[in-house]
């Protein structure tokens, strides 16, 4: 049992917590605890004072947010947090960013009116606004170079932005079911070194323990992380995969749903 706690820097927990992101924090804490590691969550909110907390953390998470908060967060990320985060990931700390958090890692966001909102520029990618939303279950086969013990990632996506990867930036994986970065390229998310961005929420880490363990390994490279009994996780994954594999299921509910939602 190691006594020094592992510190998880949760970026903008008040502003960026839209889609069950709390589940991702719970998963990191719990899978650390099941290995005898104490993981503490350090909320890193808006402002320069909070930025000073960044260097002490072993890794970072940033979730999805409402549109209202995006400008606020983008501005704060660039002016207060950027240098600290760049240094941390250069030293090998993991950063996992979901949905709007993923978009903020890129160089810029192009709005429908053609305005460019700058991003953190941690990854060479940009996102363009679009009129249609990609909403639904999302299944991805992760890039084998990430070395995940189970490369099939399952979750849910809900975004109208279309993300374009530049140069040799690798996608997190190939889309099996769903839209992914842009609904066309078959690519989902992006990764470089210890930075991962993705549109998978749902939430991501409880249902994808291999990705959760990737984060923990990067955050605590010297510690031993033995495999865990994940049968409940596997049942939840199988259930989600079976539902996405059979688009014709529950057509009665869908008919009923259409009637109600109109």
């Amino acid at each position, binding site marked *: 049992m190691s006594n020094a706690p592992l510190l998880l820097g949760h970026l903008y927990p008040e502003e960026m917590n*839209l*889609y069950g992101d*709390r589940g991702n924090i719970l998963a990191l804490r719990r899978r650390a605890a099941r290995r005898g590691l104490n993981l503490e969550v350090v909320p890193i909110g808006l402002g320069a004072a909070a930025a000073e907390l960044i260097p002490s953390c072993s890794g970072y998470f940033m979730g999805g947010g409402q*549109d209202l908060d995006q400008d606020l967060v983008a501005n704060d990320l660039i002016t207060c947090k950027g240098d600290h985060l760049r240094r941390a990931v250069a030293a090998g700390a993991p950063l996992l960013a979901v949905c709007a958090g993923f978009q903020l890692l890129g160089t810029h966001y192009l709005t429908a009116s053609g305005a460019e909102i700058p991003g953190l520029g941690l990854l060479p990618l940009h996102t363009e606004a679009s009129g249609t939303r990609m*909403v639904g279950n999302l299944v991805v086969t992760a890039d084998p170079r990430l070395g995940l013990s189970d490369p099939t990632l399952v979750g*849910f996506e809900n975004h109208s932005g279309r993300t374009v990867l530049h140069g040799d930036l690798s996608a997190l994986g190939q889309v099996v079911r769903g839209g992914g970065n842009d609904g066309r390229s078959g690519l989902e998310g992006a990764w470089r070194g210890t930075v991962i961005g993705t549109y998978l929420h749902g939430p991501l880490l409880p249902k994808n323990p291999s990705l959760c363990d990737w984060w923990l390994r990067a955050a605590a490279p010297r510690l031993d992380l033995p495999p865990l009994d994940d049968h*409940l996780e596997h049942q939840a994954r199988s259930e989600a995969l079976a539902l996405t594999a059979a688009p014709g299921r529950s057509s009665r509910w869908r008919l009923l749903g259409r009637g*109600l939602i*109109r």
Partner: protein
Amino acid sequence: MSSRDLRLMAALLGGRAAGIASRGLHLGAGSTLPGDVGRALEPRILERLGSSLRQGVVLVTGTNGKTSTAALLRAMAAGAGASVAGNPSGSNLIFGLTAAAMRESDWRGRIDRDWMVLEVDELSTPRAVSELSPRGLVILNLYRDQLDRSFELEQILDRLRLAVSRLPQGAFLVANADDPRVAELALGSEPAMVRTVLFGLRMDGEDAAYRQLPVVSDGRACPRCREPLSFSMVHYAHCGIYSCPACGFSRPDPEVEGRAIRLHGLEGLEMEVAISGAGATPVRVGLGGVFNAANVTAAAAASLAMGLSVERSTSALGGFRPAFGRFQVVFWGKGSVRLMLAKNPAGLEENLSAVLGAGSGPVVAIALNDGIADGRDVSWIWDANLEILGEVSDLHVVVSGTRAHELALRLDYAGVPEDRVLVRRSAEAAMNAMGRLADPNLPAPALLTYTAMLEWHRLATTAGPGMGPPTSQGRA
């Protein structure tokens, strides 16, 4: 007879035929199809039917509590001597409202009632206000709900602002002072146009069900300046007594206040409804949960704004029967089940707190479906504080639905031991498992997403052995 009248009559007749046909074919969505047909034949049908009421229309909106509050208000208005129409089936989009109005109308397009009280979906509210020119609008609360419908809270708030701006001159707006965003919206309305009646709860330390904000809360940021609000009391979800240390925005004093709330398990509650400058009226109602005390207060505020006697209105609640699937007790095998709709984090937490606060019994069921009507995205269960279930010893949880295993994983995270979680694929199997564990003298609580609630309701019967003839569904 003018061609307009003929068109209206044709639309009513066509809609009625469509309703009969859809019921005959078991299409399931029969409560809105007549609305589709009616609107196709006469696009202004809702406006014309609405204007035929002797007094007018009152709309009830908000994330949680619409069905119960509208049912309470109908019962109150009837108690005060008014005749009232409504949409008790809960079809609350524009086609459902149209179908409900058509059902209440005679063949010439007249609704022979004083009032029509309709619950309406938040996003459909501006359109409903435009078409119906209501006498009043009730806004209950705003929570995260069905994010896969791609609307975030701020967008919903914008829609409700638009709805308020479209209210006809002299209309009333009943709004929840305890919900910061709803209060801010109401304070921003034009007083020369709209009469605002704020309602809220007053709870002393003793009867406060919740002392803390939910772990993931949308109500924490000040609606004026976005700084975190400071709460001195939380009544339910993010509703309570708050102020902003940064800009000074604070909870306004409500004109109608629910106070001295005493909960009697899930069976009912007693409270007082106080009107500022007037007296307080005692109320008893067969609904549990603090949030239902808020719903009663909202309905009382609306009946006051409608010019009805609050004393006569509230005294009618003694015989109130819960609306469809909202604390409604149904029968299954030798036992009974209390159906509780829970479709978003706030609803699930409120209902669970009510269940656990009532001493719950040995088993609770939760069913999670991911159909369109439930919300395809089930991420929200991770935002709900299910950890309160992990703190109760000797409680079994029966989980079912299309996402039963996701729920089982969530409960594992919440600290519920695996041997106390029973995963059942079908609603029947879940009800059987619950029946074996339940206290036969108490309705076993079942928290259900929308389509799961319909399944459970269909399988069960609305009257128990020796209870007399079944009551008509959803009529409160």
